């Protein structure tokens, strides 16, 4: 049984902002198919009365006082930028 088709993989790659050449696409499809085939076994488990767990801590929202604190200067924030101009991150034309 096949869990994921090459078209699915192409679609997911688009969602993930990744691209693959033909041979990579071939390999990715067969590997994802095997992995998804393995993890699909959780569908056998009866979870009808079970709540989902997102993480282990019994906390919800964490707030702090709304006070101004020191943060990075724009020079520091831009220090790793591949390209910058006028105190901003420079990117190619938005398509």
């Amino acid at each position, binding site marked *: 049984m096949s869990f*994921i088709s090459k078209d*699915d*993989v192409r679609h*997911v*790659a688009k*969602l*993930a*902002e*990744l*691209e*693959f050449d033909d041979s990579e696409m071939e390999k*990715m499809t067969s*590997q*994802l198919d*095997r*992995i*998804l085939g*393995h*993890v*699909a*076994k*959780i*569908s056998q*488990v009866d*979870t009808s009365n*079970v*709540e*989902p*767990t*997102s*993480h*282990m*801590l019994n*906390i919800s929202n*964490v707030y*702090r006082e709304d006070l101004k604190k020191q943060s*990075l200067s724009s020079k*520091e*924030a831009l*220090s*790793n*930028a*591949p*390209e910058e101009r006028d105190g901003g*991150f420079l*990117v*190619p*034309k*938005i*398509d």
Partner: protein
Amino acid sequence: MELPLNFLPAHKLNKMLQERQVSATDIVSALLSAIDKVEAKMNAYLRVEKEGMLKSAADFDSGFNSGQDNILSGFSGIPVAIKDNICTKGITTTCASRILSNYIPVYDATVIRRLKNAGYILTGKANMDEFAMGSSNENSYFGPVKNPWDLERVPGGSSGGPAATVAAGTAICSLGSDTGGSIRQPASLCGVVGLKPTYGLVSRYGLIAFASSLDQIGPFSRDVEDSASLLNIICGWDEQDSTSISSVKNGSLDYTKYLVDDMKGLKIGVPKELMAAEVDDEVRAAVNRALKLAEDAGAFIGEISLPSLEYALSVYYIIAPSEASSNLSRFDGVRYGYRNRDAATLRGMYKKSRAQGFGPEVKRRIMIGTYSLSAGYYDAYYEKAQRVRTLINNDFNRAFKKYDVLISPTSPSTAFKIGEKADDPLKMYMSDICTIPVNLSGLPAISIPAGLSSQRLPIGLQIIADTLREDNIFRVAYTLEKAIGFNSHPINLYE
């Protein structure tokens, strides 16, 4: 045989520093000479801070000699290696990825700030699987780390570098991160002690995120005492990590008081699912020998079944990639890291930067995660996995009503050959079957050496405790460490 300085634990070095038998410069010189001899064979460091080490040591020595330094802090003058996914201000932090190969953090991770306050010396940034995804350290963009016990074998992963440096005497201790076993499994394969603390006990601020509900920073060390001392320094609430546990204050706990050689009356459960057929005979035998020692020391041993662990690997390989696909969307060539400069449009630049910047395993996990979270599949994969995660928690809760700790192998096998599992992702994922359930439930667990195999490869034993019960972990680990008496080092590396 007297061990050289670079093979001593931090607590012994600290004592020698206090008694003025050695200087910090002596310790650093011993380490640097060890690095000269063996680092090229292992590739455990992505960057060695040679000048920084010598300067920190000289500063420590002159401060100490003029009576300024608070040497009672257990890590003053102690050289520690840091996994390269933990941000160090002004020092390249690459995650062993091309996409961050030029990234220089403008801030320190909270654990680094705390280690600096404790006076540690940074030896360098340790190699790892790219973005901490892997179990063999073969996924580093900068090449694999070799196991110091056998250079044809893997050190485990993803913290292969931090484990190998401590094992090989090129760091005294180190920090790693553990999402599904990335501290404990390499500790096991390299014959050192590796602790994954309770989720939320150590701040993740400045740890480059892989799977945020599972990631936790923890120490590698030569013995259990150093593990407790390092945890003292790095643990506790941090305003900058909203998932850090607020009831534990930094500096308020002293885990070394649980280092007692006594486990009379302690109840140890052995999950039969973790001693199953996949576990090598020699590994199982070593764990059984340790259990016998525990029984001789007055502990009660019982077998327990945790049936939902059968699904842990599947749950993990949905939840961890899902969180990763979200966390790694920030690497797009805009604010930091590698950018492809040929693309004429923004989305073209995203795609090309990511396609060229990430390695195959990282892409595989981003793809699994994106698929699991995508419309039409979310309920069947991500949400279903979260529900099965609850069942795994329920199994552990039931176990800790009856037992103080659980003991299992850390890894089903000793170190495997480089390349042996590289082409089969599923086979590689199986290396973590004993460690993954612990992360899903946010529990603390340690790996300690349990002996050597017939091929002279280390075997690790895992001790799991209930949430925030690191006290039980240290008590059992300390007692077993004494009873097992593991005292081997990969000295052949130096021949």
